[in-house]
Each structure stands twice: as C-alpha cells, then as structure tokens.
C-alpha cells in the first residue's frame, strides 16, 4: 500500500468530486422539471398524451442508463447533433431519471383526493394555478420520500459519465490508475468519497422527513 498517490493527487480528486456533485445536482433539478409535465400529461384527459408519456416512462425505465447516455453521445451525431461529453451525460442521465421521477410525482398527484380536482374546476380555478397552489402543496409530502431516496441511484449513475470521457470522480480514478498503477488505493479512496456523498444524501432525506412528516 502506498497512500501517497492519493495525497499527491488530492487536488485532482477534489475537483473531480465537485464535478460529480455538479452533475448530480444538475440532473436532479432538470429531471424533476422534466418529470412534472410528463406526470401531469400521463394522467391527462387526452389519450394521445397519456399513451406517449406511458411509452416514455416504460422505455426509460426498461433501458439501461448507459444505453441512453451512449444514444446522446454517440447516437445523436448520426443526425448532425453533436453534444459535448458533459452535455451528453446530463441529457442521458436526465432522460433516464425523469422516467422514474415522473412515476413518483404521478403517485403523489394521484394521492390528492379526486374531489379536490372537482372543486378546483367548480370554482373555475385554471389548472396551472390549481396545480401550483392547491394540488402540489398536498402532493409534495407524498412525492418527496421516494424521490429523495432515489437520489443515491442518480449519484451512482453519474459515474457512467466516465465512459464518455468526462473527468468526474470515476473518470478521474480511471485516469489516475492508468498512470500511477495503484488501483487499490485510488479505488478505495473514491469509494469512500461516494459513500460520504451518500451519507450527505441520507442527511437530506432525514431533513425532508422532518420537514414533511409521512402522511401514509
């Protein structure tokens, strides 16, 4: 064991950790933003929208995230759309995560009693306003627990970025292994960093549980 390889490259590992965090947070935010309209359309009165969003949900949940990431990075150039590695990673991870998140959001929206939707319509409240001021505040306590506990998956998924040459934590680890030949020290350190980040997510989960006590 020779831990100096870790100490010598601490700066690189730190900036790689920050990229991992940045990729994860961007993916989380974008996937929720994308998932909300999908969830609403999934239960809308228009059959075509329901079918398209059901297909989206199924396709993204049945396909490996790596495949979606490769479609974004290696596949899209076939149609003249070339994304930078980082953009492709965020697109791939977001498309994948949105499939799961829309199901959590949908479950939350359905947990709001149907009478509330009827009341909203009876009072002539436009759907977007009602969604924002009446439905979502009630749905959030149901949506948050599964959404937050799924964030670990997103964090772990960000490691796939290394396979399209993004230097986040795993990518940096691979690069360091190939020029230091010290796989054990480097992989152990990187694994510990991921576990520490998971610990942080657990903390977020606890906070959410306290802020929005379970209604189930």
């Amino acid at each position, binding site marked *: 064991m020779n831990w100096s390889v870790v100490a010598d490259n601490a700066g690189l590992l730190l900036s790689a950790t920050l990229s991992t965090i940045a990729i994860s947070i961007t993916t989380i935010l974008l996937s929720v933003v994308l998932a909300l309209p999908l969830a609403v359309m999934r239960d809308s009165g228009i059959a075509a929208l329901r079918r398209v969003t059901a297909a989206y949900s199924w396709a993204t949940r049945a396909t*490996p995230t790596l495949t*979606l990431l490769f479609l974004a990075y290696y*596949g899209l150039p076939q149609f003249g759309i070339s994304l930078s590695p980082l953009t492709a990673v965020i697109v791939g991870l977001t498309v994948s995560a949105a499939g799961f998140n829309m199901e959590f959001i949908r479950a939350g929206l359905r947990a709001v009693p*149907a009478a509330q939707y009827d009341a909203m319509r009876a009072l002539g409240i436009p759907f977007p306003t009602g969604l924002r001021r009446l439905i979502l505040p009630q749905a959030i306590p149901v949506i948050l627990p599964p959404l937050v506990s799924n964030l670990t998956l997103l964090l772990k998924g960000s490691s796939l970025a290394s*396979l399209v040459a993004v230097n986040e934590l795993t990518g940096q*680890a*691979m690069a360091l*292994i190939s020029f230091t030949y010290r796989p054990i020290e480097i992989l152990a350190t990187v694994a510990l960093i991921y576990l520490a980040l998971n610990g942080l997510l657990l903390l977020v989960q606890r906070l959410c549980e306290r802020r929005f006590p379970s209604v189930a």
Partner: protein
Amino acid sequence: MDVIVAQFPLLCAATWLTIWMFVLVTAISTLLGAMLAVAADAFGAPVATPLAVYGWIFRGTPELIVLLACYLGLPALGINLDPVEAAILAFTLIGVAFQFEIFRGGLAGINRQQREAARALGMAWNVTMRRIVLPQVFAIVLPAWTTFSAGFIKAFAVASAISVAEIMGVTRRLMAISNEPFVLIAFAGAIYAAISSVLMIAELLTGRAAKFGARPVSPGKGGAA
C-alpha cells in the same frame, strides 16, 4: 441496419451472455443473501454488524467502481480474473448486499412470537426456520426481490466498461464499423428493454398479488388509468 443484420449472431451471443451472467449472479446472490440474513438473525450483532457495513459499502458505491476494483484492483493483490469472471464477482458482491437487505427486511416482518411459540412446542431451530419462518419470508420478499431484479439486469450494461462482450460491449465494438450508431445503440436498448420488460411484468404481477390481501383504499383520481 446492415450491421445489425450482418452481426446478428454476435448480438445473439451477447444477449445470451448477458442473460446467463444475470441468472448466475441472481441465483448465487439470492442464496448467499438469504443465508447471511438468516445468520445475522440467528447470531445477532457479531454477525449482523459486519454485514451491515458490507451492505452499506456495496449498495452505496457505483457498480463501475466495484467492477474496476475486481478487474484492476485484484490483480494488484495477485488475483487475476478475466473480464467475465471479474464482472460475475463484482455483480455478485453487489447483489449479495441488496439481497441481504431484502431478506433481512423479510425476516424482520415476521412476528417473533411465532418463533417463541414454535420453540415452546419443542420445534428445533432448523425445523422452525424451514417450516414456519422461511415460507412466510419468501412470500414477503417476492415483490422487493422482483423489483430489484428488474432494475439489476440493466446494471449489467456497465460490464462493457471492462470489455465484457455482453450486449452493450458488442454494440460498442460494432459502432466502430457502423455509420448508424443511433440505430445500433437503440437496438441494444431494445434488447435490454425486452428482457427487463419481462421482469417488470413479473414485478407488476407479484406486487399486485402481495397487495391483494390488505389493499389500501386508493384515493386516486377515479377513472384515469
């Protein structure tokens, strides 16, 4: 499209490799996970605590890191594995961690008084486990087990990173000789989707069967399916 047609046998072999690796890993990790959960339950903290640490490590670390540790890390300790062996080892390590957690939850779901009653009736520990506890555990864990399996098959795509010739691995090689990467990758995605759809349908069925007993009142939006 031409590449898919011309290299169809290669893609079939890759699909087969993915399926048998998945089946093998699932069988070993279910068995080991269940046994370890029973051991943790029987011996308490001295066994349960190290297993909890093990589970925390392997459930929290990205699959790719575990794969690299088996493929690049073990040779540094003098253990050389070929890519398929390294992938099987890595996914088994990860699978055991999840299965242990699934079965631990299942065991916790069984009222301890049942075991006390069995003991009061003079039933030996192994008989109690086999005839009273485990049959109920299997019923409890089935939905969680199926949900995990439906997601786990997709993780095998990552094995392509250590040059395992599974579906994504072969696809990466074919991309080099194809000018239609999108079609090729989408086809690979379709193969995974087909396999995991079978598992997702099983997930729906077992989930429904499990809920049937004590179905909560669904406050859903009526009508809308």
